[in-house]
């Protein structure tokens, strides 16, 4: 069962994508929703809002432990920020992904943009950057960089963790979700 963090943001778009792929999922709004989860999606949204709700709803520690135990996780945009071991000018949230990210790294909404590029071995992938972060530095040599756009790292993989600065859930292209579902749980 895939768990989609549903405290705030674009979780319904991830759910739609999993519907299309025929993958069973459940939405996580409280601790009791974590039972039976084998992989986890952290959606786009406002990371400060999601962080506050993770703490208040008692989800932070259990999810951190699940990630540490090797559960496959995909974080998109705000989700990448929650996963990063270091966040510029801020405390880290969940952690687990050894990268340093910068929030709102392209500025305000006028800086939002889209491009088509390669994500690892996936060609012609449409990337939507909405007030997006990017990865400033990779903190361990075994973090794989899957995409660099305009000199900025925007997609990484570390073992079972996929961190994306953009929003695969806003596209019609389900190849990244398929790739994530292929990680062994």
């Amino acid at each position, binding site marked *: 069962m895939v768990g989609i963090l549903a405290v705030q943001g674009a979780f319904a778009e991830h759910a739609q994508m999993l519907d299309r792929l025929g993958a069973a999922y459940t939405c996580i709004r409280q601790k009791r929703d974590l039972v039976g989860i084998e992989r986890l999606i952290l959606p*786009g949204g406002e990371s400060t809002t999601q962080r506050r709700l993770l703490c208040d709803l008692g989800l932070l520690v259990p999810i951190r432990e699940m990630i540490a135990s090797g559960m496959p996780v995909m974080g998109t945009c705000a989700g990448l920020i929650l996963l990063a071991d270091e966040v510029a000018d801020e405390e880290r949230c969940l952690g687990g992904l050894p990268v340093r990210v910068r929030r709102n790294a392209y500025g305000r909404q006028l800086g939002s943009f889209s491009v088509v590029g390669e994500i690892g071995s996936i060609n012609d992938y449409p990337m939507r950057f909405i007030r997006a972060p990017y990865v400033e530095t990779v903190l361990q040599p075994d973090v794989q960089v899957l995409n660099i756009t305009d000199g900025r790292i925007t997609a990484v993989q570390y073992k079972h963790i996929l961190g994306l600065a953009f929003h695969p859930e806003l596209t019609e292209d389900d190849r990244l979700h398929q790739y994530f579902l292929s990680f062994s749980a």
Partner: protein
Amino acid sequence: MNDRYQLNKELAQMLKGGVIMDVTTPEQAKIAEAAGACAVMALERIPADIRAAGGVSRMSDPAMIKGIQEAVSIPVMAKCRIGHFAEAQILEAIEIDYIDESEVLSPADDVYHIDKTKFRVPFVCGAKDLGEALRRIAEGAAMIRTKGEPGTGDVVQAVRHMRKMQSEIARLTSMREDELYEAAKQLQVPYDLVQYVHENGKLPVVNFAAGGVATPADAALMMQLGAEGVFVGSGIFRSGDPAKRAAAIVKAVTNYNDPSVLAEVSASLGEAMVGINAQEIALLMAERGK
């Protein structure tokens, strides 16, 4: 479709399940952000004070808006008057994240709304029913909210607008395709938007509730009625303990379907804003700009 408009609609998608709070100072903005607001609306006076003060109400001072932009990392919105495209140009120049073309301010044009397709920044507009919502979308709005009755603390009109919109959407969805032309005529909106609603059972943009939300229960009510998120204006900084109430409303929007969570967050919040019954007031702001 124009990619900038698409990106602007997508920013609204990222705000879903969240609470957008009215703030008048950088300090209030920080309180709102810490409480979990997904965006703030920067304005000089909250709607309750605008209503009390009367007179002409205009766009806020750009210096004041910039102060709030510097204080927080979440998106910052600001209001311009209905039809006042020069105010909107100024807000775009200071790189506001979203413009609210709002009936809470005094309308600058009693016929025309702003042609929002001419702007690169996104707009949110109020709507009392499906026709208004689709007309605003045709003009380029990337997000819709109910109009409610701002500054009253009375949720009755937000409820009325949301129910009306949902029932009109349901009606379009159940129509035969050949009936959609007449529906577009009656709603006074372009046919392609009617067709979109018919096929998808929802607006082509994100739809929030606004106006009169003062408690976690109000927020949960609006979410259960189909809102995708909530604007809270006077309800927070007009109450006894703004930080606590703000955090409670944020949690209520996440767990709007769980009465036990709602009971927990509703407890001991201190005094809610006093409010005015919507039928006791002479000036209905929701009647501005159809």
